[in-house]
C-alpha cells in the first residue's frame, strides 16, 4: 500500500498500528503523536454530521450519536471536501443500525434534516409574479405549468416527521401527532421552512415537479384525496416564494 494509503487506513481504524517510519523529531517513534490526526479526523467529521443532523443527536443523545456517526464516517468517509453535503447516506445507515431499530422514525427524520440543509444551500431563484393566476382565465388554469424553486424539497413518510422535528427544535411545540406526515420544505428567504402537507398534497407536488400541468396534477391529487382543495396549498407556495415560473401550454 502507498504511504498515504497506509496513513488513511490507520487514521480510520484505531485498531491498526501507527504507520512505520514516523518520528517524534528527536529520532524516536511518533507513538501517540499520530493520534492527533485520528482525533482531528474523527472529531471534525462527527461535528460535521452533528451540524446537519441536530435533531437525530437530540433524539438519541450525544454519546449514541457520536458512536453511530463515528461508525458511519469510518465506513463512509466523505468523498468531497464540501462538508455541507456530507451524510447523504446517513439516514439509510441509521435504518440499518441494529441498536436503533426500535426507533423506526429516525431515518425519515434524518432525511428531513438532510433536506433542510440541501434547501439552505440550493440556488436562488426569483419568485413568479402571483398576479399571473388572477390574470389567467379560469378555463385556462388547468393548462398552467408551474416550476418549483430549486430550494423546494418534498418528503413522504409513514411517521409524523414534521411533528417530531418541530417538537425537538421549537420551544413549547406540541407532541407529534400519531399519523403519517408528508412534508414540504420551502425557502421563503434564506431559512428553509418545513410544513406538513394535507392529504393529496404530495401527489399534487410530485406531479408538478415531474412537469405535469395544473389540471393533471389536480387529477393525481384527487385520486388520493377526492376533496383536495388547491387554493390553500397554492397560497402557501406563493407566500413562500416556492413557484418561480408559470407558463400556459398552447391550447390543444
Amino acid at each position: 500500500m502507498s504511504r498515504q494509503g497506509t496513513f488513511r487506513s490507520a487514521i480510520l481504524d484505531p485498531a491498526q498500528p501507527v504507520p512505520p517510519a514516523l518520528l517524534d523529531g528527536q529520532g524516536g517513534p511518533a507513538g501517540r503523536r499520530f493520534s492527533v490526526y485520528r482525533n482531528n479526523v474523527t472529531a471534525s467529521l462527527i461535528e460535521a454530521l452533528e451540524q446537519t443532523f441536530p435533531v437525530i443527536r437530540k433524539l438519541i443523545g450525544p454519546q449514541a450519536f457520536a458512536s453511530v456517526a463515528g461508525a458511519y464516517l469510518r465506513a463512509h468517509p466523505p468523498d468531497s471536501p464540501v462538508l455541507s453535503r456530507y451524510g447523504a447516506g446517513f439516514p439509510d445507515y441509521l435504518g440499518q443500525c441494529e441498536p436503533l431499530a426500535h426507533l423506526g422514525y429516525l431515518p425519515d427524520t434524518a432525511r428531513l434534516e438532510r433536506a433542510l440543509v440541501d434547501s439552505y444551500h440550493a440556488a436562488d431563484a426569483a419568485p413568479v409574479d402571483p398576479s399571473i393566476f388572477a390574470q389567467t382565465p379560469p378555463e385556462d388554469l388547468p393548462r398552467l405549468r408551474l416550476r418549483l424553486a430549486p430550494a423546494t424539497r418534498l418528503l413522504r413518510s409513514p411517521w409524523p416527521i414534521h411533528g417530531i422535528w418541530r417538537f425537538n427544535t421549537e420551544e413549547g411545540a406540541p407532541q407529534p401527532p400519531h399519523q403519517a406526515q408528508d412534508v414540504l420544505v420551502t425557502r421563503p428567504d434564506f431559512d428553509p421552512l418545513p410544513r406538513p402537507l394535507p392529504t393529496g398534497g404530495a401527489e399534487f407536488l410530485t406531479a408538478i415537479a415531474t412537469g405535469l400541468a395544473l389540471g393533471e396534477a389536480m387529477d393525481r391529487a384527487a385520486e388520493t384525496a377526492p376533496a383536495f382543495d388547491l387554493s390553500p396549498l397554492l397560497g402557501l407556495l406563493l407566500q413562500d416564494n416556492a413557484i418561480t415560473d408559470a407558463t400556459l401550454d398552447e391550447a390543444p
Partner: protein
Amino acid sequence: MLDQTPVNTLPHTPGVGYKPQHYSAIMADPGPVRWLEVHAENYMGDGGRPIAQLRHLAERFPVSVHGVGLSIGGEGRLDPDHLARLRHICDWLQPASFSEHLAWSSHDNAFLNDLLPLPYTDATLTRVCEHIDALQEAIARPMLLENPSSYLAYAESTWEETDFLAEIARRTGCGLLLDVNNVFISATNLGFSPQGYIDAFPLDRVGEIHLAGHDTDADDHGRPLLIDSHGREVDEPVWALLDHTLARSGPRPSLVEWDNDVPDWPTLAAEASRAAAALSKVPA
C-alpha cells in the same frame, strides 16, 4: 509556472477569519479589521445565505479565499470537480488572494478533513509543484502556499521545510503564507528553534501571515505536544514570533484565525487590534 509576481492585493493590515455569527457586527463596525478570509469549501453551495453574505462582505472588504480541502500533497491527481469549484469561486468573487496548504487530505476517494503531513522528498516536491501548476492554471492566478503545523516527522524526509517551501515557490511562482502559530507548534513539537525557522524562511515570498491559538497536550514521554486548535487567543510566544518576523519581512497582511469555540466579536476584534499594534511598530 505562472509568469506573475507572487504578491496579492491584500492590504498590509489586520484581517480576521470570517465567521457567519459576526456578520452583523462586522457590517456595523469592523473596528481594526480591514480585510476578511473565508474558507473556500464553506461557499460551494449553489446559493442561499452564505453566498449572499459573502457578496455583501466583498462589496465592503478585500476578501482572501483560503482553501482547506484540495489535497495539494495528495499522491493521486487533484480532484477535477474540486478544481472546478475553486475556479468558480475565484471567477465570481475575484478575491484579493487565494491560498492553500502544504498538506494532503484526500486519498482513494476519501476526504479526511484534516491537513495531513508530507515527507519532504524529491518525489513529493515534484508532485506538489505539478499540483500547484495545475491549480494556478485552473484559477488563473498565483496562489499562496501555507506552511503546516507538524506533530511528527517522516523518516524519509531529505529537505528542510523552509528549503522545501522556497524551492516550490521558485519552481511554480507561487507565494507563501507564513503561519507563525504553525511555526511555533512545529518547533515545539519537533524540537527546533522557531526564530531559526523564520530566519531561514524565504520572507520575500510571503504574501500573508496567519496567527491563531493552540492547545497544549503531551507526547508519550510527557514532552509538550502543541495542538493547532484555532480555539483560543493567540499565545504570547506567537505574538513575539510575529514581531520577530515583521522586523525582518516588513509589514504583511496579518490574519487572526479563530475557528472553534468562536468568541464574540469584541474578543476577536481585540486580537486584530493587537495585530494592528504589531504592524504599526514596523516601518513600511
